[in-house]
C-alpha cells in the first residue's frame, strides 16, 4: 500500500517555522531601523520633509529589536537574519518545485478564475466556512500564498539588496529596476506592512479554523485527507 502523503511536506514545515521566525525578527529590527530616519521618498535621493511622500510614526521599544533604539544593533540583526530568510526561501522554492507543491497546490487553473467561482469562495470565507472540495487550497488561499511567496518575499530581498551600496556597485542594474535607491526603500517599507497584513489575516484564519489542529499539522505534517 502506498504511504499516506502528509498534508505538509517536511520542506514546507521546516521553512514555515524558520521563515516565521526570521520574518518576525526582520520586521521588528526593521522598525528599529525605520526610527533612524522616518521619512520615505521616491527616486534616487531624498533627505528633507519637502521631498518625502510619507512620514511614518516612531515605533515604540516593545515593537522593535532590540527593545531600545540602536541602529547599529538593529542592523546586525537585520542583515544576519536576511541570510536565514533569503536562503530559506530559496531552499523552500527548490523543494516545492521538486515535490510538486507549487504545481499541485498553488498554481491556479483557468476554471477557478470564473467570476461565479470567485464570488462563491468569497461568500464561503465570509460565512467562515473553510470546507472546500478537492485540492488543498481554494482560490483566495492560492492568491494570498502565491502573492506572499512569489511577490512580497522576493521583493523584500531585492529591494533590501538595492539599499546596500556595496551590492549596488556589483549589480547596478538592480537599482534601476526599482527606480532608484529611495524608491527601493519605500517599496521595502510598503511590502513589509503588506506582509504584516498577511500575517494578521493568516493568524486570524488559523484561529477560526481549529487552531490546535492546524498548528499541530504544521509541526508533524498531518494527514492529507483531502487528496483523491
Amino acid at each position, binding site marked *: 500500500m502506498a504511504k499516506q502523503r502528509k498534508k505538509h511536506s517536511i520542506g514546507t514545515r521546516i521553512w514555515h517555522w524558520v521563515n516565521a521566525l526570521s520574518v518576525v525578527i526582520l520586521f521588528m529590527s526593521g522598525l528599529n531601523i525605520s526610527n*533612524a530616519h522616518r521619512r520615505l521618498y521616491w527616486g*534616487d535621493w531624498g*533627505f528633507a520633509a519637502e521631498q518625502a511622500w510619507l512620514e511614518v510614526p516612531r515605533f515604540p521599544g516593545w515593537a522593535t529589536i532590540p527593545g531600545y533604539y540602536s541602529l*547599529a544593533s538593529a542592523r546586525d540583526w537585520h542583515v544576519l537574519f536576511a541570510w536565514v530568510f533569503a536562503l530559506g526561501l530559496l531552499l523552500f522554492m527548490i523543494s516545492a518545485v521538486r515535490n510538486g507543491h507549487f504545481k499541485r497546490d498553488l498554481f491556479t487553473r483557468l476554471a477557478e478564475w470564473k467570476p461565479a467561482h470567485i464570488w462563491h469562495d468569497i461568500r464561503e470565507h465570509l460565512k467562515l466556512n473553510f470546507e472546500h472540495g478537492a485540492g488543498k487550497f481554494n482560490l483566495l488561499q492560492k492568491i494570498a500564498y502565491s502573492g506572499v511567496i512569489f511577490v512580497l518575499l522576493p521583493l523584500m530581498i531585492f529591494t533590501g539588496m538595492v539599499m546596500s551600496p556595496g*551590492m*549596488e556597485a*556589483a549589480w547596478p542594474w538592480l537599482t534601476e529596476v526599482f527606480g532608484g535607491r529611495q524608491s527601493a526603500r519605500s517599496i521595502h517599507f510598503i511590502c513589509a506592512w503588506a506582509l504584516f497584513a498577511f500575517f494578521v489575516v493568516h493568524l486570524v484564519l488559523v484561529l477560526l479554523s481549529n487552531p490546535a489542529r492546524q498548528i499541530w499539522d504544521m509541526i508533524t505534517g498531518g494527514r492529507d485527507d483531502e487528496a483523491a
Partner: protein
Amino acid sequence: MKRRNFLVALGASLVAGCSKIGDSQWFEALVDTAEGWHRGIHRTLGVGRIAMAPEYERSDISPFFRGNGSRTVDTDAYRAALESGFADWTLSVGGLVDNPLTLTLDDIRTLPQRTQITRHDCVEGWSAIGEWTGPQLSHILEQAGVQEAVRFVIFRCADNLNGADYYESCDLDDAFHPQTIVAHLLNGEPLPERNGAPLRMRIERQLGYKHAKYLTGIELVASLEDVEGGKGGYWEDRAGYQWYAGI
C-alpha cells in the same frame, strides 16, 4: 483577553531574548562573520571588472547637500583656518610608508583630478547626490610608497564628537579604488563647512560614516587593533556600527 496577554508576553520575551542574545559574545562573532561574507560577496559579484558606484548626470544633483554628524569643527584654530581660506591647512601622509608627505591644499589641487557625481547614502536611510572633485587616493598613496605590511588606511579628522576625535579606515581594495578621492570641491565650489571643509574622503561603495570629513591625516597601518578603540572608526568604536559599511 487571555490570548492577547499570551501574545504580548510572547512578543516581550522575544524582545528580551533578542536583547540578551544581542549582548552575547557568540552573537557578536556571528555578526562579524557575516560582515566578512558581505564584503567578500560584494567584491566577488563584481567579477572581471572594477565594481563602481553608479555615477549620475548634473541634472540629478540634489539642490542642497545635507550635512550630518559634525557640521563644523569647534576650535579657534579651525575658525581661523576657515577665515583664511585654509591657506595653511595640511594633509599628512604617514605610518608604514617610504616617503611621508605633507600636502597643502595647493599640492592637492595640482594633482590629477577626478570629478564624479555620486549618491551619498547615510546609514540612517537618507540619500543626497553631489558632484565631488579631488585627486584619487591611489595617486597620493603611490607617491608615499605603501610598504608591504600595510593592510588598512586610517583617515584622521579635525572634528571632535562627544569627546573623541573622529576617524575612519578602509581596506586597500577601497583605498586604491578609482572612485576613492580626497574631495576638495562639492558641485564645483570649495567644500562647505557642514560637508567637511576643506577636505573629505569619498569612499563611494560604503555608507556615509566612512566618508571622513575635515581630513588632516592619512596613516597606513598593518592592523586596526592599536588605533583608538581598535574597531576602525569613530562610530565603530562608540556605537558598534559595522566596520564594513557596504550594506
